[in-house]
């Protein structure tokens, strides 16, 4: 590579342009998800890495100070690790029905192209959960019970929730604000084959006014609508309350032009089979995070800061603070041409 090209790549102009582009990407990208900032920011940061590599060969000051050099190298490492983390990571979400196992095929979200998919070996069964609310609908502690495979046929239970995630195989499952009710229904067709499904109703109490959903009966094109009728409100806008499944809720089934209200265990006939409302369950929404490189990113950033502090401390020691207050010999202009004097040190 020619000397002048390296000098150009190492120039301040490249540094400032890259920083400017990074600012633009961050600001415009975060404004309404026009593009994924996390992916786009790789451009200016990749360019900054090239800029740094070039400057390593030309910039004498940078090479002379171990602190400054270490800081820059650590930042470049951090950028690479962050990119690697995004390519191998997973940031998803999933809804799990009470009494039902976690189903990896329902996970949605950002899955890195090189993510080592190991969710298929993640097994847990959602138990019940309790969420306390303070007056004014302020959500407090979430305690979500999950059952894990134990020795032999036994299982053991664990309480997770809020900032105490369930971690399996590097996947961190955090309870989220998203949770609700899920009526369990069974459709038995004319041939006697039964299909059971849990219909997840919209998040509660966020969507308390829309506790309904469409359900297409498996194996048919027949769609029914269900609505959870709650005679008494579960939540209390004024006082403290706890998320629970209501005792007296009934399931409204709207199908074939008729509206029918079912208690748990009741069955209605539809053309082609019977629909039975088994019981009311709940569902918990989890956010899932997989970032195995985090410890190394943290180590990198700690080293970066130590190097920077070292460099700055050395700078401060060169003249005392009092000395800094007194006039120092004028330096303006002496290094104004520093960049043009691009020294390619072999």
């Amino acid at each position, binding site marked *: 590579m020619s000397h002048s090209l390296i000098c150009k790549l190492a120039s301040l102009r490249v540094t400032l342009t890259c920083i400017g582009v990074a600012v633009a990407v961050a*600001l415009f990208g975060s404004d309404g998800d026009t593009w994924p900032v996390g992916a786009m920011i790789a451009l200016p940061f990749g360019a900054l890495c090239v800029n740094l590599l070039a400057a390593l060969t030309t910039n004498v000051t940078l090479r002379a100070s171990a602190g400054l050099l270490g800081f820059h190298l650590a930042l470049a490492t951090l950028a690479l690790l962050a990119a690697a983390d995004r390519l191998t990571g997973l940031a998803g979400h999933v809804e799990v029905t009470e009494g039902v196992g976690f189903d990896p095929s329902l996970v949605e979200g950002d899955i890195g192209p090189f993510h080592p998919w190991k969710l298929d070996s993640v097994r847990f069964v959602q138990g019940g959960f309790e969420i306390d609310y303070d007056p004014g609908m302020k959500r407090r502690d979430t305690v979500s019970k999950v059952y894990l495979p134990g020795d032999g046929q036994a299982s053991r239970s664990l309480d997770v929730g809020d900032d105490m995630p369930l971690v399996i195989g590097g996947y961190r499952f955090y309870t989220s604000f998203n949770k609700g009710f899920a009526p369990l229904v069974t459709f038995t067709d004319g041939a006697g084959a039964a299909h059971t499904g849990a219909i997840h109703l919209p998040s509660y109490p966020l969507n308390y006014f829309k506790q309904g959903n469409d359900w297409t009966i498996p194996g048919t094109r027949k769609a029914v609508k269900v609505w959870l009728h709650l005679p008494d409100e579960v939540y209390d806008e004024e006082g403290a309350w706890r998320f629970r499944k209501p005792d007296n809720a009934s399931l409204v089934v709207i199908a074939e032009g008729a509206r029918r209200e079912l208690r748990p265990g009741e069955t209605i006939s539809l053309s082609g089979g019977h629909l039975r409302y088994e019981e009311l369950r709940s569902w918990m929404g989890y956010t899932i995070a997989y970032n195995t490189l985090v410890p190394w990113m943290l180590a990198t950033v700690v080293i970066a800061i130590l190097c920077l502090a070292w460099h700055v401390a050395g700078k401060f020691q060169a003249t005392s603070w009092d000395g*800094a207050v007194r006039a*120092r010999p004028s330096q303006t202009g002496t290094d104004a041409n520093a960049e043009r004097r691009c020294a390619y040190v072999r």
Partner: protein
Amino acid sequence: MFADGAWLPISLALYLAAALAAAITAARNGTFQMTIMLLAVALTTHSVAISLRWHRLDHGPYVDMFEVLSSNIWSLHLAVLIGCLAIPRIKASLATVLPVLQVLVVWLLFVPERDTLAPITYGTVWLPVHVTLGKIFLGCAVLAVGLSLVVLVRHSGLGAFGALPENRALDELAYRFILIAFIFETLMLVAGAIWAQDAWGRYWAWDPLETWAFVTWLSVAAYLHFRAMRRPAPALNAVFVLGIFVVAFSTFFGMPFVSTAPHKGAI
């Protein structure tokens, strides 16, 4: 004993008085004894107000706009006081920096004071660490702003500030404060990321406050590179420092204000 609500107005009045005293002292070329005393008393009463509220609500002042603003008024004035006591020759910059800080004081008068409840994910040591580091960052930036304003006032011929060292020395000091601010801003970002990774499983999610804090960091980085390579004149450096402060200010007070709670998206 007054309730916490009563201590605050007293403190705010004292801050305003200190700023006024600083301006008058600078005009008369006097010593800043009175300003520093008023500042010390204001900080004491404000500490009482914050402690009482902390004790009553059982969480630190970092939940809503009122608390963020109040605690930053406290920490920024404290930073200015410490700076001037540690480097007595820059005391006269109180006349430039205190009036700037009164913007926050007046603003606080219009922010409603409500009892707040800390969200459940705020129960971690990383939150106070994150907040404290941020306050040190902003405190250092404010000291640099005070000195830069002096440089600009002299440059525009509006005042001489004879008691202060010459521009080049002020510029060097402002640069040092910015360097320290840069370290603490980096630390603040890291502590925030650790907290976020712990509480929500994401160390960085480009929420508006994160994005703006990152932009602030980049703007400081750009300034440091520009300064190291081009060695600009003090007046230009002063403009850069003010620019950084404006970005940092909108990050700290603009973004939480827009979304009513800091890191709204995450709660």
